[in-house]
């Protein structure tokens, strides 16, 4: 399709680089922005500029932040002795939304997967070991995904942390709350059985 304007054409090109945006959707978005008010359109442009100019990676935990160290790493109300290791910044959001954790995070930014060219040097493993070496940490919770790369990463990290006097734990894997035993596949069931716990009695 030939555009009458070169700027529209280049906007469509840029938009279609976004994940999940095809040529058609990119055109729709471009025309929406063309018709939008100047304030709305510039608001988007400035927001994009701000995340590129101001958002950095926290040197402690590896999460996205504008201040280094980030708000979570510097929050005096959070425990400094427990550290929860996750693959992605999105995972921090999910755990924070659960409200069930008040410690520190360590964002790996990936999981060991040579098929996607991700090895130990790509996952901030060294930074984790450095944090643990400083001695404040007493527990490391490995909350990588329950899939093969996530599991392999958990084994790799627990191996690395063996020499330190920290307890290394792995989040439980198994049947999701609201899930059905009947519809769980055998791998999920096997893990759920493996991760069974004594029933607490009064």
């Amino acid at each position, binding site marked *: 399709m030939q555009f009458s304007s070169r700027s529209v054409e280049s906007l469509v090109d840029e938009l279609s680089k976004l*994940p999940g945006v095809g040529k058609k959707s990119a055109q729709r978005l471009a025309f929406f922005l063309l018709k939008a008010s100047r304030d709305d359109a510039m608001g988007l442009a400035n927001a994009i500029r701000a995340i590129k100019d101001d958002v950095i990676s926290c040197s402690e935990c590896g999460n996205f932040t504008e201040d280094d160290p980030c708000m979570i790493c510097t929050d005096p109300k959070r425990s400094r002795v427990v550290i929860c290791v996750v693959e992605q910044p999105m995972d921090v959001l999910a755990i924070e939304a659960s409200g069930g954790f008040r410690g520190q995070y360590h964002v790996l930014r990936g999981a060991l997967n040579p098929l996607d060219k991700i090895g130990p040097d790509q996952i901030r493993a060294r930074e984790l070991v450095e944090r643990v070496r400083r001695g404040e940490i007493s527990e490391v919770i490995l909350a990588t995904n329950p899939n*093969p790369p996530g599991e392999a990463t958990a084994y790799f990290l627990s191996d690395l942390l063996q020499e330190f006097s920290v307890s290394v734990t792995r989040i439980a894997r198994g049947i999701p709350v609201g899930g059905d035993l009947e519809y769980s*596949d055998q*791998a999920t069931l096997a893990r759920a059985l493996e991760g069974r716990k004594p029933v607490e009695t009064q």
Partner: protein
Amino acid sequence: MAIEKSEAIILRTLNFRDTSKILTAYTLDHGLVSLIAKGVRGPKPRFGSALEIFAHVDLVYYNKDSRDLQLLSQASLLEAHLGLASNLDRYRHACAVLEFLLKLLSGQEPPGKLYPLALRTLEVLEKAPVASLGSLFLAFQIKAVSFLGHRPELFSCISCRESLTEPVYFAPLHGGTVCDNCVVEVDGTRTITQSQLGFLQRLMKSTLAELFEDVPSSEFMADTRGIFELFLASQLDRYEPSRSLRQIPNRHALGLREALKAGDPLGN
């Protein structure tokens, strides 16, 4: 649009948009197939562990030859091979198998011996003694290239066809062993010791389970692997040495920790 059913091994997965996944599956009936699995992630995930690498699954999908991505309809797990991720050595070798298949397969392969070999290799890598994983992976490679028409000659001279007596040479470019009489006529030869040749012959002839006790020294393994890598590189267009074996460390945990202390890059 035809509906297809096939068992398959999942070789690659990629999260796509908020709730979908793109998969590369090695199907028994149609070779390599790329699939989109819509709405399988998110608050109500579908198909559980069936859409993870190493999984042996039954797939149902809509196939249209004009499309690059076929639409997944059903997936049920036959075996997750969970053990492959529970030890880094098993993991790196199993990833190396998937990586080799992704490089080797070009698409619509007709059903053949390679699929059952691949499946059997994953099963075996999950349970075999860790020390034998290197031999098993090399055996998988030798058998796999043989099934695809690049069987190395290891039992007679590629030039005169006579049986071999010491000294024996290996000509990667010509695909096999060369006898002492012919070595001057064949280019690119290198020596191969009797024990290296015997090892490669065993890997080719034995079943995978018979190799559990075959644990050569790491030096012997590296040398023999080196010879076979030369063969692979000259026989296969798109061959690259395994990234999985290179990138994921196999050093004992202590070695790794020492590497960290010394500031070495990990996994090199």
